[in-house]
């Protein structure tokens, strides 16, 4: 790599790859309640869409449970299908 002439005074702060873990396995949560909106809002981005596993790091088994709970909450109008910047203000 030829020298690009850009010198960094401090080394670029590369985000050290911290190991992602499935919070449900760690906390031993077995059931995700579809009626508990404040908890479910953590798994939804500010457009109201479900966060993918690669960001939250949850295992497949619990991601399916979260997705099902969120879809049920949306059906009974506890959570919006599409929200606008509703980040945790509920």
């Amino acid at each position, binding site marked *: 790599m030829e020298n690009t002439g850009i010198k960094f005074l401090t080394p670029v702060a590369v985000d050290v790859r911290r190991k992602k873990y499935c919070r449900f396995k760690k906390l031993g949560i*077995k*059931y995700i*309640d579809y009626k508990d909106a404040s908890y479910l809002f953590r798994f939804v981005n500010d457009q109201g869409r479900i966060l993918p596993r690669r960001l939250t790091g949850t295992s497949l088994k619990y991601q399916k449970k979260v997705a099902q709970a969120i879809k*049920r909450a*949306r059906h*009974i*109008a506890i*959570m919006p*299908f599409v929200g606008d910047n509703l980040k945790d203000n509920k």
Partner: protein
Amino acid sequence: MVNQYEAVFIMTPVLSDEQMKETVGKFEQLLRDSGCEIVHQENWGMRTLAYPIKKKSSGFYHLFEFKAEGSFVREFELQLKRDERIIRYLTVHLDKYAIEYNQKRRHTKEQNNNEKQQ
């Protein structure tokens, strides 16, 4: 095979209080008549909906937790669908973790109430 179910339904906000109680009573009676055991009942009262349903942006929420035969749920949902005061309903089959979760939640709620009363 008797399973445990949880049914949540939303009633139009247009109803007066007695009408709301009457609808809830009607379904409670339906459950009792068919020999289902109502484990728990919760009324969340008037809540704003996340999106308007049938041009209404709020509704009365009510929750029934009951034990019933598998075949009964279809009949129960038919009644829910037919009643025009109810704008949305959802019946969920509870597995053992869900039942445990609900019991724990009710238990802590009672404790909080007791503490408040003391």
